[in-house]
Every structure is written in C-alpha cells, then in structure tokens.
C-alpha cells in the first residue's frame, strides 16, 4: 500500500500531516526537556537563562527530608497497589473471559467505570463516605482508592491477552487430571505473563503518579510524591523542583524501558537457545 500520494492535493496534505506530526512531538517533549536542562542550572532561580552547569540542586534535593519521605511513601503505596491490582485484575479478567453467567455484560461495564468517572468525583465521594461513618483517612483507604483507579486498565489488558489464550489448553490440562489451581499456575499464568507484567507496571505508574484523588484521600500529614511537588510549587518554581522532576522522569521512563529491553533480550536469547536445542 503506497503512502506517497501521487496527486498534488494529496502531496500537500501529506506534507502538512508530516509537519503537524513533527510539531506535535516537539510540543509534547519540549517542556519536559526544558525541565531536565534547567535542573542542571547553577542559578538560584528555576527559569531561563542558564548561568552554568551544576549538580548543586541534586545535592540539595538529597538533603530534603520531606522529599525523601514522600518518595518512600509513594513507592510503597505504588508497590502494594501494583501487586493487589494485578491479582484482582487477573481474577476479574478470568471470570469475564472464560465464564458465562447472567449479568456478565453489566459487570464488564462496572469494572471499567472507575476509569470513566472523573477523579474529582471519586475523591469527594469516598471522602464523604468516610466522613459519614466517622472513619479517619488512613493509608489503607488511600491504597484501596488507588487500586480502584488502576483496576480498569489492568482488567482491560489482562482481558485482551486472555481472549487470545485458547481455553483448550486449560481444558486439556484438566482433562488429564490437573486441578484447577495447578492448571491456572502451569498453563494460564505463564501464557498471561506479558499482560501481567504490563498491567503491574501500569498500575504502579498510575498509583505513583496519582495527584487529584490523592489530594482528597491522603491521611493528615502524609504527602505522596505528586502532592509534595504541588506543595513545593506553591512557593515558587525552584531549581530543586526541576531536579526532582528529572529524577522522577529518569526513574519512571527508565524502568519500563529497561524492563522492556530486558524482556525482549530474554525472549531473543530463549529463542536462540531453543533453536540450538532443536539442532
């Protein structure tokens, strides 16, 4: 299928498309690059122009106890969220793909609802519920809230993968006497690994990054990384915030990329190994 249009109108349209695409990519990454560049600024102020290269602000950041505490809090919250959401999400997807029961359609919609209701409303709603039964805001509630927010995405990813895993494999294992659990562990789960990994990673990011709902749900005195950044922005934009932003970008972009690279290298290696074994 030829993409290079032959006619004149088409040629101009294609040029415009290419130009707009370049613009959109610049638009998406220019501000982020500016933040990274400015984090190495020697100046006391957070903006342009650059006055010199320095790692000073990374040192300052490292000394900032509030930031380190918030970072640890977010890390734990995101880890727990990722693990629990992945388990619950895979079980949900299993039920929605493999089973037939009344109300399946409705449940499928119910499960993606948290992704469609604005976070502000979810935030206020849960807060009012807690208040109406005189419960304090706790870390558990915050984490359960994050699980709620991440669940639709994990279910959708697991569902998409599960559909492509044919049920005859599982039925074959069971007909040969494997128990349900053994079948799941030995057959279904290994086939679901890519979806499980992708879902866990996404749940981690969603939780680690969550701002709007966390502002409502966090217990008194607890700051997560995004709420801490928001608090730091209230005074002024300091080079320290830029350094913090850069650290987070390197982490959140680097980890998935590294994970993906390792995974593809491993499959490559495995394939080569099995090819050699075949010989």
């Amino acid at each position, binding site marked *: 299928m030829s993409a290079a249009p032959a006619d004149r109108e088409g040629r101009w349209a294609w040029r415009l498309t290419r130009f707009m695409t370049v613009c959109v990519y610049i638009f998406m990454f220019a501000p982020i690059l500016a933040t990274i560049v400015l984090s190495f600024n020697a100046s006391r102020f957070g903006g342009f122009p650059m006055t010199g290269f320095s790692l000073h602000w990374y040192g300052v950041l490292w000394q900032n106890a509030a930031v380190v505490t918030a970072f640890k809090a977010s890390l734990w919250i995101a880890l727990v969220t990722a693990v629990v959401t992945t388990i619950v999400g895979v079980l949900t997807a299993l039920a929605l793909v493999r089973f037939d029961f009344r109300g399946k359609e409705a449940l499928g919609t119910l499960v993606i609802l948290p992704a469609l*209701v604005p976070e502000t409303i979810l935030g206020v709603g849960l807060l009012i519920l807690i208040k109406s039964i005189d419960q304090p805001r706790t870390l558990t509630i915050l984490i359960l809230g994050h699980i709620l927010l991440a669940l639709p995405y994990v279910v959708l990813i697991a569902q998409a993968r599960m559909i492509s895993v044919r049920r005859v494999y599982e039925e074959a294992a069971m007909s040969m006497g494997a128990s349900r659990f053994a079948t799941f562990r030995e057959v279904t789960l290994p086939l679901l690994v890519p979806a499980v990994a992708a879902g866990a990673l996404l749940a981690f990011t969603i939780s680690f990054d969550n701002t709007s709902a966390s502002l409502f749900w966090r217990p008194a005195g607890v700051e997560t990384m995004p709420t801490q950044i928001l608090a730091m922005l209230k005074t002024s934009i300091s080079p320290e915030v830029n350094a913090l932003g850069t650290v987070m970008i390197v982490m959140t972009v680097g980890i998935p990329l590294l994970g993906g690279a390792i995974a593809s290298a491993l499959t490559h290696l495995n394939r080569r190994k099995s090819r050699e074994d075949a010989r």
Partner: protein
Amino acid sequence: MATRPADIRPTRGWRLYDPRLAWLLLAPATLLIVCFLILPILVMAVYTFFTFITAGVEQSTPTLANWHEFLTDPYYHGFLFKTLRVGVVTSLICGVVGYFPAYFIWSTEFKHKWLLLLLLIVPFWISFTIRTFSWIHILGEEGLINVALLRLGLIDQPLQMLYTEGAVIMGMVHFLLPYMILNVYVSLENIDRTLISAARSMGCTNAQAFREVTLPLSLPGLAAGLLLCFVLAAGSYVTPQILGSGRDALFGNLIYDTIMGQLNWPMGATLSIVLFLVLGSVAALYTRYMGMSQIVKGLGG
C-alpha cells in the same frame, strides 16, 4: 465451547465453568467498586440534602438549600459554563491537532514506526504534575519564549502567557493529546486497507479516498477521543491550579475549595453530583449513539 471435553468431571459438585466460581473470582473487584465507587456516589447524593451549619459541621435535617443555592446563584453557573467551554475547546483542539500524527503513524512506511508509538506512551509514564509544571519553563516570565524574545529584542516586557486560560487549555491539550492520538490510531488500524486500494483503483485521488473512505471509518475513534478528552478536561483541577490564575479556576477547583477550604461538605457534595450528572449525560448521549466498545478499545491502548 462446543468442543468442551466431556471427561472433565465436576470437582466437588462444581462444574467446569460454574457461574458460582465466576462470581467468586469477581468478588474482590465487585466489592471494591461497590464500596469505593457506587456507595460513595449514593452517600454523596444523600449529602446534598444535608443542612450546612458551619465549617466542617452539618446536620442530617433534610433541606433543599444546597440545590436552591446552586440553581439560583449565577456564580456557580458561570463556573459550570466556563468548565464546559474549556472542555469543549480542549477536546476540539486535541481532535484537530491529534488527527495528523495518528494518520501519519498509520500510513507512514517509516521503518521505526514503533518508536513513534512508544513516544506517545512515554508521556503516560512521566508524572502528570511534572509534565504540567514544565510548561512554566516555556510560558513563564523566565520561560523559553519570553527569554528568547527579550534577547532578540522583539519585546521589552515579558509577555503574560502563564496564568491565563490559554495556558490552562494548553496544559490540558498537552496531557490529553496522547489519548486522542492513540484512539484515532486504533480506529485507523481497524480499517481494511483494501478498501482504500479499491477506492484508488476506481479512480479516486488520494485526497478523495481519504475523504470518502478513511475519514468516515476513523470517526468512531475520533468521537471516543473527543469524549475522553472532554470528560478528563472538564473534570480536572490540578492543571488550572498550576497553570491558571484564580480567575481560571474550573468546576473541579470550586469543588476542592468548597470541601477542603470552606469545609462545606453538603455544598461540595451538591457540586460534585452536578458535575457527575453533566459529564454522565454527555457520556450517556455518546454511548447511545456510538456504544461502549470504542472507549474500551481506546482505554486498552
């Protein structure tokens, strides 16, 4: 399913695909959604009829005062209209601007197409707060544009670009564009390319083939993207908080201030329910005509 092996005997009275087992598997997710989504919204709806006494204190005496206040005070209507306007403008900009890259990625013969797609997903990994505040470096008084223009001598006073409605819309477009592009891209990918070849072979120019075949067939994705962008933009409050001035506050900020600032819970509940109903009816209107499947596809990326 027709080939279900007969020799898989029920274990302890449970059939192979027993609905009871399905419900057991679904229990955690259902419980969570009922307790943390359905129940809160119901309680919130009840709360709109509570009486506000003073900051943080309310009584369960039923009253229509909150609804009366919302319906009669133009202050609230102004917020609602501005929020809807910002949402519509944002999603339209996303639709127009986002269609180009989606189309480009779909039709390019560039070898490293995956890289273009990956770059669309990378922003999802970068903290939303960081992506938003990074605009301060572009639009602010010490931002890239102002510093460059001052150095070039084109202006002698920094331009006020930050803390305006334009900056808020820009920040939202920045955060929503990947959703839009991926939605349109997914629907383009579902087009049977032989249809376009057929149109071309019957004498259509490329432009005609685009107008008559590609564009109409990609509309479901565009529509899903528009809905998603509108709902996310109209429900947001962090972007206006970082990039807007007090005047650019949206409905979400109003809710946040009412609850966290004034501690007026009944009014906060009322405003939340209003936003929920408004956005919900837009979404319901959409699903009525387009169905849910496209949104599911878009979310799944």
